């Protein structure tokens, strides 16, 4: 899930200073779960905008704001309200915001700062465990990702800042390499048995593009 945090109201106020009327867009997926762009937050934002003397011409919550075609279709359904607005304010991750900017010529603002791909520990507590590096090393590291959970993304063991098994960058956090070490303690394979080569960052070419070919639809496990 994509974890985001809301931009602070003062910043938003500054962004909106030249606009009188706003159309609001939320997202029913990640943004709802991490409480930045669900029904509740869209409603609260509407109240805040109106208290500040702005018109809210309408609002909608997309099922998944990252679905480009569906976002375009939904936006067409609200054409009049969108037309009436000076600006669209999107409360979803940056991907969702760009589905919207992709299908309207109106100015589009985003009201959140997207942070990371997160696991949910429990409600309201999220942890980053994978940063989608494109060259996955989990099979060698006992299923614990050093690219993401080591503050320096090291691949061959801990740095000199590790103290009593904790990370130099965040003392509350166990060093990722201590976790990997304990997990692999009784295995001869894995990262400790050889030099791990530098990562192939060409796999992380930007902007990412991925096309499923027709065959993989027909024969998924070939």
């Amino acid at each position: 899930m994509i974890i985001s945090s809301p931009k602070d109201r003062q910043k938003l106020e500054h962004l909106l200073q030249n606009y009188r009327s706003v159309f609001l867009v939320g997202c029913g997926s990640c943004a709802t779960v991490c409480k930045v762009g669900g029904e509740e937050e869209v409603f609260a934002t509407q109240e805040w905008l109106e208290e500040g003397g702005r018109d809210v011409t309408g609002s909608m919550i997309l099922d998944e704001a990252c679905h480009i075609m569906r976002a375009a279709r939904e936006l067409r359904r609200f054409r009049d309200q969108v037309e009436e607005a000076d600006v669209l304010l999107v409360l979803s991750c940056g991907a969702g915001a760009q589905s919207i900017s992709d299908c309207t010529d109106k100015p589009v603002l985003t009201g959140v700062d997207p942070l990371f791909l997160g696991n949910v520990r429990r409600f309201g507590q999220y942890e980053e465990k994978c940063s989608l590096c494109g060259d996955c090393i989990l099979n060698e590291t006992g299923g614990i990702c050093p690219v993401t959970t080591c503050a320096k993304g090291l691949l061959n063991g801990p740095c000199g800042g590790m103290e009593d098994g904790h990370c130099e960058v965040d003392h509350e956090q166990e060093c990722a390499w201590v976790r990997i070490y304990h997990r692999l303690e009784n295995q001869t394979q894995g990262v400790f048995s050889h030099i791990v080569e530098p990562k192939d960052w060409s796999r992380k070419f930007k902007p990412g593009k991925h096309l499923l070919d027709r065959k993989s639809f027909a024969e998924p496990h070939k």
Partner: protein
Amino acid sequence: MSFFSDKLQAGRFVITAEIAPPKGTDVEAALATAEQLRIVDAINVTDNQGACMRMSPLALSRLLVEQGYEPILQVTCRDRNRMALQSDLLGASALGIENLLLLTGDHPRFGDHTASRPVFDLDSVQLLKGVIGLQNGIDMAGNRLASAPRFFTGAAAAPAAEPRQLVIRKIEKKINCGANFFQTQAVFHRPQVESFMETVGNYKVPVLLGVLLLKNTRMAQFLNAQIPGVQVPLNLLKRLEGVDDPLQEGVQIAREMVSWARELCQGVHLMTFGREDLIPQILAE
């Protein structure tokens, strides 16, 4: 090769110290410090130490070479990707710099540019291996070099860090990737040096024990709170507190650590932070 490497390889006791490049363009003070370090075998030149931006250590190392000193160029993986690192290393070789200390580097969170992007494209093991390649005339992408550099490479070790077995695994990797010597972080507890050398001594790679001059209690407390991997034990804090002249007590403590090194290691790496004038006292037997 370098005098430093000759002396180490001949099994003799070596002494290194360090200089930080200036925060600015004037190298006068750094060269004055170097003058006080004529008595040591080689001088480490730190690389944006503590993640604080300063002059390039490559530039200062070259100036030291010109003045007849033997620098150990510190190179961290924090600020440059593999292309920039290799290109700087070729430059270093062309400028007559032979000794390298290859490090991971402190995280930018500790420094004066906290908003900068941490690079860590390589880790210290991969950088060591990359340097072997360069010396064999091949870059990290497998391309041939028109001419190959020659270096004497070292790496860092943290004898006080736990879990010890994990630390050893990384040290083994560094040795497998051509580390010719280790300079350690400051260790204040003799049993830690003993047990570390019991294991690492078996690899026959020279270890230079990190010896840090404690100037007063405040500095010791700062190290404990702020510097990753450095822990001044309570009994030393008490010793510094209980005397009229804490600096002199600090020199005494450093002398004790140098004596452990003479007994157990093959050298010392002195960190004196502006009191290089006290080095002769610290080294006095």
